[in-house]
């Protein structure tokens, strides 16, 4: 009984993440992969993502401190970052990544820098939201969190 409000809250949180464009279809794919044999799959993947991508973000940051910019390298890092981000369905982050790569391709250093700042913001925001989401999910109980329809 007490779970229901939690579940409802969870559902709302989830919905808002999608509605606000933080997450996309891919996240649903992750949820669908979560089941009894893999009860915390989504959280595991997201955790892994944040852990691994932190390294990439750092690399990019360092690369942006060295002038002139090595666009090729920046692009390579971002390509990787984008791949990861898209794997968990991080929609806004992915969009910023794409933009960043465009700037790299056109050699726009300013654009890259600006874009990267925005990207970090989105990245951090999403992380906070997901952490909160998972916290509620854990409290609400492992069942059904992944299967909720959009």
């Amino acid at each position: 009984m007490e779970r229901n409000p939690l579940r409802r809250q969870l559902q709302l949180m989830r919905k808002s993440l999608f509605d606000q464009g933080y997450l996309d279809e891919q996240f649903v794919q992750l949820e669908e992969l979560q089941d009894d044999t893999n009860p915390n799959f989504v959280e595991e993947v997201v955790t892994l993502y944040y852990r691994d991508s932190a390294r990439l973000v750092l690399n990019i940051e360092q690369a942006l401190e060295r002038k002139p910019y090595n666009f090729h390298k920046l692009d390579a890092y971002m390509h990787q970052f984008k791949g990861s981000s898209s794997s968990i369905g991080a929609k806004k982050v992915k969009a910023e990544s794409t933009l960043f790569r465009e700037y790299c391709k056109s050699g726009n250093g300013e654009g890259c820098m600006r874009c990267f700042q925005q990207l970090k913001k989105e990245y951090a925001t999403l992380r906070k939201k997901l952490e909160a989401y998972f916290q509620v999910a854990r409290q609400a109980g492992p069942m059904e969190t992944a299967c909720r329809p959009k």
Partner: protein
Amino acid sequence: MTVERIVSETKDQFPIGMRVLAVDDDPTCLLLLETLLRRCQYHVTTTSQAITALKMLRENKNKFDLVISDVHMPDMDGFKLLELVGLEMDLPVIMLSANGDTKLVMKGITHGACDYLLKPVRIEELKNIWQHVVRRKKFDRKVRNNSDSQDKPHADSGEAAGIGKADNSAKINKKRKDQNEDEDEDLDENGQDNDDPSAQKKPRVVWSVELHRKFVAAVNQLGIEKAVPKKILELMNVEKLTRENVASHLQKFRLYLKRISCVANQQANMAAAVGTADSSYLRMGSLNGLGNFHALAGTDQLHNAAFRSFPPSRVLGRLNTPAGLGIRGLPSPGTIQLGHVQNSGHSSNDQSKLQSFIPGNHNTNILQGMPMSLDLDQLQNNKGVSHIGELPTANRTAVFPVSGSLIDSRIAGFSNNPLLGVTSNSLMLEGSSQQANLHASNLRDGVSAAGFQNGNTLSNFASIDPVSSQLRDSKADLQGQAAPINCNAGPMIRSVPQEWSAPRKDAPYQSHLMSSSVNSSIPVNGAMVQLDQCLDRNNSIFHRTMDSDSIGPLNFVDPLSIKHSEGLNSAAMEPPVIEKEGYLMYQLRPHGNHIPDNIGSLEDLASAMMKQDQDKGKPTAGNFRHNSYSHRTCI
């Protein structure tokens, strides 16, 4: 015993339990991939390092059924891994990348990938990957059976020996290639084997561009369906080449064709492209660039249409047609639709257009392909050369496939390397959406070598330009020479990779080959014809995902050498050897060919392509980027 039972049960339930090796340096993606694959009920092994993957594969070749690998990896390039796996283990490999660039996709396919998936990968896509395993088994069997039925039983042993030795020989061959530019010398290696092929280990025959061209010409003459090693051998009239050599080469060739068509067919939408509504193209376009590539590859229709229909001159004309050139407008990156490659016969208008393209006129690369189109008549189904012309009607994309084919044929013609043939397929592609600016001016001759600028693929295609000029001269030669290359590219590619890396450093001989090949009559015709044949078989030959821009210069650069080149050197007809990624690429650039006005769009494409090239280097006419693959040991 229990284990055996389990194993056999698993096999019976194929695709359940299919053993997949997943390679990706990104842990998030790898975990996701693994979970997805497990959900599909495959048996999954993962590793984040390509080197480890290779080790595992080499330890036991029968341990896995399929390999899925990321393209960008720190310890080894995904394409390299792809080549090695294909060559050494002959396992189907699926590439995975977050980057859906047409060029990359093309590169993947030309390197022999069965499929190219975009990240984030979805389970639906993974559910179907088992087909690659089945297909490969079936095709290999079929091809082998076919060749067996036609050839003596020796062929198999010869082939097996050849294949078996592929890994070892490749390296040896590479060295040999460096030393022997002359194909005849290569043949000497096999001279001794004539007596007892099945019993002795034969030195591999290096299928140089020249040799391959002859092979293709012979096959074209006979008709791919009827080509028997014995007759091919007779037609080729090369000393010291044995029937077994030809047989295995033929087998690989056929395998390649089939593979291409499989790839092409995979993209169902593509099929639509050729003769169907444009919407299919659009759909293709939506395939994240992947589709396009396949789309071009062709649906049978496409092939038929494109190739058949192009009468040599007409083809060119078609290319000119804005529709074709219209690729620019293609929604999807490079879905080049043959558009309506309808069999409407050759429109006379096209002819005129073609004229302009005709390589004789120094047309753009595409045109180069055109000259080959002269032989199109020979193409089996002259359904209507008009396709090219029609392409314009079709979604702009249409053109390319045709052109692609032409190019392919062209490329095949002059590309000594079998790779070139391959490139042609890739050439077609280029439609990377990025190139949007095709400037007519750049299109110098219509096909500015740039062809596919975005990156890598461009370099792959040697600009046809130089070829075109040659084509002019050697239209006759076109017959069937070039074409096969395209077709061959497939199997060639596999074998080539090994060679390619080697040649990288030794550009010289490449260029040598290239120039020679280029200078010699460009077997465009042959290519065309071949294309036709190939097309019939493989819709996929023209996978060209052409971005609107990409049509540009058909750079027939070895697709393997994806690096787009540092620009095509303007050396007229000089075959600068550009090593990209270790591949020598010859970029044939049209020498100051004039592109007739109608080619406009084509020019635009070319220019767009050129432009992109310019980022890397200036595409110049007459650059030959020769792929080091010119010598491919297909056997």
